[in-house]
């Protein structure tokens, strides 16, 4: 029986010819990553193992992105401990204020992750790098600690679900709409313990940014990872961003999938996930007359340059509705700079939005845009759980940058294709 792409990468890193779903294996790691919240927990665990040094200074990554610039004294203490650890262990990829970006936007951009890698990160959206044809998954702080000490992690080889993509998106539809559509279809535990394997001709029409957004939210369907085949776009991206050697893995023709969904991209509509689960999706035409208090455009899901462009193209020359706080956050310093050069920052500010330095900030209810009781927010982030962005009685609606920007202008959830019609 053949192997899926995920299984092939895992087999190669476990030094095996063949692995099968359900098997428990010990795997060699190419990258181990953590952020300011999870690394703080991993450090004492790392020390308890008795390890004095990390397994490889070039393969450990620490990104202080969640509560930075330090939002309060406790967060400052936490960042200080991470910083000290990074200096003591002399790791190469340590990102602090000034260089920092949201981890999952930053690692691909810096060329730290490439096709064929096995990556673990103490952050659930580590699955993002599957867009590059890598096996990449979120783990907790103890796994991070052990990963840093030994360069290895244990895994159960996952079963797989295939999503065969056909056709192309219509205008104003993007990767976010597709992944919300899929989560709505299979549910927040629809891919529990499994890999989501994207295949088919339709893959080639997707930009790398679309693929990052889609792989990013695999965890929101309970998946272990999401993964895309490597094509010319992946190779071009990798060569532009990295000098690291990479390996292309392909699924066997007789790879076994638990289920196959065939999806015609041209039929996907702008989609919104209603509170309080990412699976509560509706197409935007069924989300009329929902008034909002805040819009957030950013995060590891939609803080890339093409997301900023989508927002700028809609906001340019317009004004956000009075009373809608519109917060736009680029994923990295490079994206920030590119937005300045492209004139987007001026577009945003003239429209009445704010443009922040890169941070996770409001996405997890950290800082920079917390919601009060009863407030509603349209957000391009990835989770709309109870209290995720603030008060337990607040509401988060997940959408694409285009829907979020259009909603900022009208003050209610809006289909970007209908702007100017009313």
């Amino acid at each position: 029986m053949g192997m899926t792409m995920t299984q092939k990468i895992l087999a190669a890193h476990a030094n095996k010819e063949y692995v099968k779903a359900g098997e428990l294996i010990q795997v060699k790691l190419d990258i181990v990553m953590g952020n300011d919240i999870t690394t703080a927990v991993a450090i004492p665990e790392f020390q308890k193992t008795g390890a004095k040094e990390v397994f490889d200074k070039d393969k450990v990554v620490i990104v202080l992105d969640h509560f930075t610039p330090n939002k309060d004294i406790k967060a400052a203490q936490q960042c200080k401990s991470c910083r000290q650890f990074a200096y003591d262990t002399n790791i190469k990829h340590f990102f602090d204020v000034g260089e920092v970006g949201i981890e999952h936007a930053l690692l691909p951009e810096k060329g730290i992750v490439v096709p064929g890698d096995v990556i673990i990160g103490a952050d659930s959206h580590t699955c993002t790098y599957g867009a590059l044809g890598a096996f990449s998954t979120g783990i907790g702080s103890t796994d991070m600690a052990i990963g840093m000490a030994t360069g290895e992690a244990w895994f159960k080889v996952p079963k797989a679900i295939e999503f065969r993509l056909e056709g192309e998106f219509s205008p104003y539809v993007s990767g976010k709409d597709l992944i919300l559509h899929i989560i709505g279809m299979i549910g927040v535990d629809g891919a529990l313990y499994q890999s989501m394997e994207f295949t088919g001709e339709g893959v080639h029409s997707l930009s790398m940014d679309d693929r990052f957004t889609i792989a990013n939210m695999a965890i929101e369907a309970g998946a272990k990872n999401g993964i895309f085949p490597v094509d010319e776009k992946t190779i071009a991206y990798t060569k532009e961003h990295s000098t690291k050697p990479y390996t292309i893995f392909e699924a066997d023709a007789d790879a076994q999938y638990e289920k196959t969904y065939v999806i015609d991209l041209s039929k996907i509509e702008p989609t919104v996930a209603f509170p309080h689960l990412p699976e509560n999706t509706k197409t935007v035409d069924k989300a009329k007359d929902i008034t909002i208090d805040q819009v957030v455009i950013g995060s590891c899901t939609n803080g890339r340059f093409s997301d900023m462009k989508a927002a700028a193209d809609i906001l340019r020359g317009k004004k956000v509705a009075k009373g809608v706080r519109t917060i736009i956050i680029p994923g990295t310093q490079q994206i920030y700079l590119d937005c300045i050069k492209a004139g987007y920052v001026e577009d945003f500010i003239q429209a009445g939005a704010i443009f922040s330095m890169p941070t996770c900030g409001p996405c997890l209810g950290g800082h920079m845009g917390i919601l009060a009781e009863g407030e509603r927010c349209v957000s391009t982030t990835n989770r709309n759980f109870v209290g995720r962005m603030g008060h337990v009685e607040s509401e988060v609606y997940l959408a694409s940058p285009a829907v979020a920007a259009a909603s900022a202008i009208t003050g209610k959830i809006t289909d970007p294709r209908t702007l100017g019609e009313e």
Partner: protein
Amino acid sequence: MKAAGKVFQYGDNVDTDVIIPARYLNVSSGEELAKYCMIDIDPDFVNKMKKGDIIVAKKNFGCGSSREHAPLAIKCAGVSCVIAETFARIFYRNAINIGMPILECAEAANDIEDGDEVEVDFKSGVITNITKNCTYQAQGFPDFIQKIMEADGLVAQTKARMMQ
């Protein structure tokens, strides 16, 4: 190894944001986190529960963030075991890695009610509902995971390995 206590019951998709919201993640000590355990789903949980009590939930318990603070808060609050129909995968491995006992058992998850007195035998996987006078059989752990649990978590196991 056994556990016994009163059951606090919850539904599907209990996420890590309600188990321990991000606003409390500016500290990492288990004792500190335990004070806010379950606060956004059951604000009075830490006052109502007694050491040894058990959480029972339905599908996909612990979904969302990778924050190990979630099983840590539950463990340090004194919860002796979480029983669910299924667990989200990161929560599952975090719980095992830190030695927080969890059991998957659909029958128990759907039959046990809030307030029931329940006893768990981790070795056999037998869950006894004392209130209802019946038992359920949970899935046993594979050997590999059993060994991590026996070593009292992944850190202790790795330490032993690194000393060799």
